[in-house]
C-alpha cells in the first residue's frame, strides 16, 4: 500500500518535472517580455522619468490624474472608438459577403480570391505608405478620379474633417481580406453533408446560406467581433506612418499618443500611464463585449 502510494507520488513528481522542463523556455520568454513589463509599466506610471537618466522621482497618482483630465488622450480614445465602430460596421458584413461569394462559387472564382487576398500580404507600414501617396492631393488616386470628372484635387488626409475617415477606409481595405479568410474558414468547417442534406430537402442556395450556414457561423462572427474590437483599440503602425496622428490631433490614437509621449518627447512616466490606461480600457471593453455576446448565446 505504502509503496504503491510512493510510487504514484514519484510518477507524479516525474511528470511535473518533465512538464516544467518543457515549459521553461516559453515561460522565461513570456515572463521576461510580457508579464514583467506589464507590471513594470504600472510601476513606472507613478514616477516622473525621462526613461534614460537615473533621475526617477516618485509622484504618486500625478500621471494618472493628468491622464484622467487629458483632453488629447480622451480625444484619441474617441478616435479609437470611431475606428472600432466603423470597422465593425464595414468589415464584418463585407467580409461575410466576400466569403459567401467565394464559398458559393468554388474553384472558378479563384481569381477573385487571389486578388481579394492581396492586401493581407502587405505590412501595415507598407499599406500606410502606399495610401499616404495614393490619397495625396497631387497625383493621388482619388484626386485623379475627381479630376477625370472635371473636379478639383481632393485633400483627404490634410483635412481635419476627413483625415480620420480616410484612415479608417484604408484600415478597412487592409483588414477586410483578413475577415474574408476568417469567414471562409468558418464556412469550410461546416460539413459538406449539411449542404447536401439541405439541397436534397429542396432548399435553394440562398435559403441554405440564410437559414443554415449563417446561424452556424454565429460563433465565428462573435470571435471575429472580439478580434476586431481589440485590434481597433490597439491600432498603431498604419496610422503612425500615414498621418503621424495629424493633421492636428485629428487622427491621433491611444497608441500613437503613447508612443509620442514616451519616445518622441521622452516623458516615459506619463507614457507608462497612457499605456496602462490603454491596457485597462481595452481589457474593460473586451470583457464587456464578451459578456454581451455570450449573454445573448444563453438567452
Amino acid at each position: 500500500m505504502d509503496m504503491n502510494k510512493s510510487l504514484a507520488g514519484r510518477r507524479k513528481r516525474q511528470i511535473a518535472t518533465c512538464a516544467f522542463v518543457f515549459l521553461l523556455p516559453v515561460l522565461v520568454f513570456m515572463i521576461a517580455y510580457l508579464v514583467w513589463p506589464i507590471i513594470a509599466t504600472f510601476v513606472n506610471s507613478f514616477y516622473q522619468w525621462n526613461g534614460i537618466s537615473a533621475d526617477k522621482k516618485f509622484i504618486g497618482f500625478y500621471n494618472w490624474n493628468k491622464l484622467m483630465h487629458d483632453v488629447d488622450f480622451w480625444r484619441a480614445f474617441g478616435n479609437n472608438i470611431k475606428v472600432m465602430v466603423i470597422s465593425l460596421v464595414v468589415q464584418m458584413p463585407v467580409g461575410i459577403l466576400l466569403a459567401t461569394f467565394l464559398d458559393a462559387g468554388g474553384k472558378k472564382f479563384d481569381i477573385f480570391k487571389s486578388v481579394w487576398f492581396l492586401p493581407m500580404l502587405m505590412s501595415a507600414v507598407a499599406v500606410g505608405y502606399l495610401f499616404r501617396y495614393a490619397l495625396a492631393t497631387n497625383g493621388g488616386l482619388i484626386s485623379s478620379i475627381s479630376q477625370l470628372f472635371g473636379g478639383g484635387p481632393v485633400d483627404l488626409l490634410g483635412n481635419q474633417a476627413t483625415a480620420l475617415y480616410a484612415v479608417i477606409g484604408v484600415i478597412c481595405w487592409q483588414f477586410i481580406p483578413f475577415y474574408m479568410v476568417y469567414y471562409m474558414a468558418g464556412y469550410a468547417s461546416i460539413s459538406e453533408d449539411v449542404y447536401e442534406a439541405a439541397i436534397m430537402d429542396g432548399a435553394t442556395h440562398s435559403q441554405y446560406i440564410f437559414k443554415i450556414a449563417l446561424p452556424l457561423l454565429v460563433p465565428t462572427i462573435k470571435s471575429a467581433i472580439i478580434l476586431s474590437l481589440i485590434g481597433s483599440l490597439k491600432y498603431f503602425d498604419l496610422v503612425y506612418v500615414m498621418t503621424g496622428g495629424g493633421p492636428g490631433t485629428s487622427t491621433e490614437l491611444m497608441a500613437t499618443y503613447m508612443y509620442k509621449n514616451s519616445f518622441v518627447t521622452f516623458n516615459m512616466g506619463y507614457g507608462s500611464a497612457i499605456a496602462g490606461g490603454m491596457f485597462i480600457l481595452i481589457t474593460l471593453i473586451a470583457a464587456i463585449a464578451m459578456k454581451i455576446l455570450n449573454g445573448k448565446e444563453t438567452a
Partner: protein
Amino acid sequence: MKEKQDIEKLYAANKRKKTVSWIIVMILAILWLMVTFIPFLFMVLTGFKQKLETIMYGAFHLPEKLFLDNYIGVLTDINFWIYFKNSVVVLVLSLIILLFISACAAYPLSRFRFKLRQPIYLLIVAAMSVPIHVTMIPVFQMTIKMGLYDTIWALIPTAVAFSTPISVFILTGFMEGIPRELEEAADIDGCGRYMRFFKVILPLCTPGLSTLAIYNGVNIWNEFIFAFTLTQSNENRTLPLALWNYQGQYASNTAMIMACLTLSVLPMIILFIFMQDKLVKGMMAGAVKG
C-alpha cells in the same frame, strides 16, 4: 393548360430574377476587385515613372516610358540589401527558436496532467490579446540594460515572445488531435517521456508547424514597432524600416518610394504565387485564435 402557362411564366420570371441578381453580384464582386487591385497597380506603375510624372499627369496616366532608374536605384542601394539581410536573419532565427520552444510547451499542456496546467494555459490564452504598447517601455529599458539596443539581436526575443502565445495555443490543439496509441507504442519500445517528444510527437506535428511558420513568418517579416524603437542605425534595421528611411530621404519623390514599396512587398507576392493555398491556410490557422 392555363395552369401550365402560368407555371412557365413564373419559371421564366424566376429565372430573370436570378440572372439579374447574379449580374448585380458580379458587378459588386468586380467593383471590389478593382478597389483591391488599383492601389497595387498604382504602386507598381508609379515605380516606373519619373520624379514629377504623377504630380503632373495624375495617377492614371501610364508611364511616359519604362523608367527603370527607381527600381535599379533601390536594388543597387547597399542599404536596401543590409535591411533585407537583417530581415532574413531575424526571421530565420526567430522562427527556429519560436517553433521549437512552442512545440516543447504544447507537449506537456496537451499530454500531461499536473497542478499548474490550467493556470499556465490560461496565462497563454490571456497573453494573446495583450496590447504591445503596454510592454514597450520596459522592453526598451531591458534591451538597453542587456546591451542589445540597436542590434538585430534585440528583435529576435521580442519576435519570439510575442508570437509564442498563439503558437502554443494552436500547437496544443494540434497535439491533442494526435492519437495517444502512437505514443503508447513508443512507450512499450522503451522511449521515455523526453524521447517520445522528439521521436513521435515532433515529427507528427510537421503540418501544424509549417502552418505556424507561415503565419508567424508573415508577422515577423512585417514587424515594425519594435524594430523602430529598439534599433537606430541603418545597418541594424529591418526591411519595414527601409521604407521609413526612404521616406525621409525621398519624401517628394513618389516614384522612388513606390519602387521601394513594390520591392519590399515582392518577396511576399512571390511566396503567394508559389504557395497560395498553404499561405491562405496559414492565415486561417492564425485567424482561429479568437
